């Protein structure tokens, strides 16, 4: 927990090696989630149920890519560039949760809606726990990101309510929820227990993963139950202060670098042109922000 005696860090120069590792891990979790979910959302381009939904989801994807860039920019101050972080990074160095990398079930809009809802609630909780981060470059960016998140949640909730109102829609939502729920839990898994401990000790984030996960579960279940869906239970292990029991989690967690095969395929697709053109630098169509 962040306390008054926590030092605050203005930049990378104020951090020792262990602290750098923790900040970098926290940032990559955020950035990689945003990048990969945005990439998946764009698969709905020209395929969403209505033109308006298509444009709205594309708009959300664009927001998430913008957020990914905000976080990657901070990682770059640690001595990396975009080629290291995206174009030439190994698939198993990515720290995103497996929720964001799964392909959508063919044509299943309910999957997109449920997934974005589960993700956006988690993102909201995570961002709020970073508002008082002891690392200034993180703290400074949270407001900008949160400002765009309300729309994402409103969009997802509005669609959930519409789909839940008819039998077929309800059935599709329930099946997407049952399939995605275990993957959503991986959002709150540590990349590494020791690094996670440092993140909390330094007050980089002022909530522990377990606490955020419980808050997420409560919020998600009370809303989803209000529209008639059944949310899987979150059975807590006897000892409260540990992560969820492994049987609740999917085979691949993602946070620890262990991803599904779908991720490797997606990364190949993302970097296809870069590879094909034999590039060794990232192309920018806009000047970097000052």
């Amino acid at each position, binding site marked *: 927990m962040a306390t008054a005696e926590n030092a605050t860090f203005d930049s990378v120069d104020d951090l020792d090696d262990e602290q750098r590792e923790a900040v970098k891990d926290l940032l990559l979790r955020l950035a990689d989630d945003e990048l990969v979910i945005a990439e998946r959302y764009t698969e709905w381009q020209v395929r969403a149920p*209505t*033109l*308006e*939904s298509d*444009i*709205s989801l594309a*708009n959300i994807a664009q927001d998430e890519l913008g957020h990914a860039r905000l976080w990657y920019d901070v990682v770059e101050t640690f001595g990396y560039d975009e080629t290291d972080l995206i174009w030439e990074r190994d698939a198993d160095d990515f720290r995103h949760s497996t929720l964001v990398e799964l392909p959508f079930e063919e044509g299943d809009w309910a999957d997109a809606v449920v997934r974005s809802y589960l993700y956006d609630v988690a993102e909201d909780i995570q961002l709020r726990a970073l508002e008082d981060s002891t690392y200034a470059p993180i703290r400074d960016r949270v407001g900008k990101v949160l400002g765009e998140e309300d*729309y994402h949640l*409103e*969009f997802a909730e*509005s669609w959930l309510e*519409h789909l839940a109102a008819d039998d077929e829609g309800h059935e599709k939502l329930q099946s997407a929820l049952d399939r995605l729920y275990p993957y959503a839990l991986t959002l709150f898994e540590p990349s590494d227990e020791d690094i996670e401990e440092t993140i909390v000790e330094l007050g980089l984030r002022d909530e522990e993963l377990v606490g955020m996960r419980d808050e997420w579960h409560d919020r998600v279940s009370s809303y989803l139950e209000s529209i008639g869906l059944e949310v899987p239970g979150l059975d807590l292990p006897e000892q409260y202060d540990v992560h969820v029991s492994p049987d609740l989690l999917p085979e691949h967690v993602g946070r620890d670098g262990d991803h599904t095969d779908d991720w490797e395929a997606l990364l190949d697709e993302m970097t296809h042109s870069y590879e094909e053109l034999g590039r060794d630098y990232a192309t920018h169509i806009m000047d970097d922000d000052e």
Partner: protein
Amino acid sequence: MIWEVFRQEKAGGYHTHCGNVHAPDREMALLFAEVQHGRRKPTNSLWVAPQEEIGEVDTEDANFGGTTNKSYRFARTYNVEPAAEEVEASEKELTEAEEQRGEA
């Protein structure tokens, strides 16, 4: 269902019609309008209204005026040098009306 969208650029200004969106209800119409009409241009507020709720009367049913010379309605008589702002505006309006009638 089609919702007509009206955009207001600055507080106090008129909401001007800027297009429409397909949406099942008002809430979604607003969400869609936000993305399609409020994202690229400076926007202070958006209205949506169901298309079927909008009343219309057009030239087939009505004589709207502006087709005959109504110069007596414009403030030209009090012309002094330099022209008062109001007179200048009125002059401009008159000239425009004449142009639109094809008289100028």
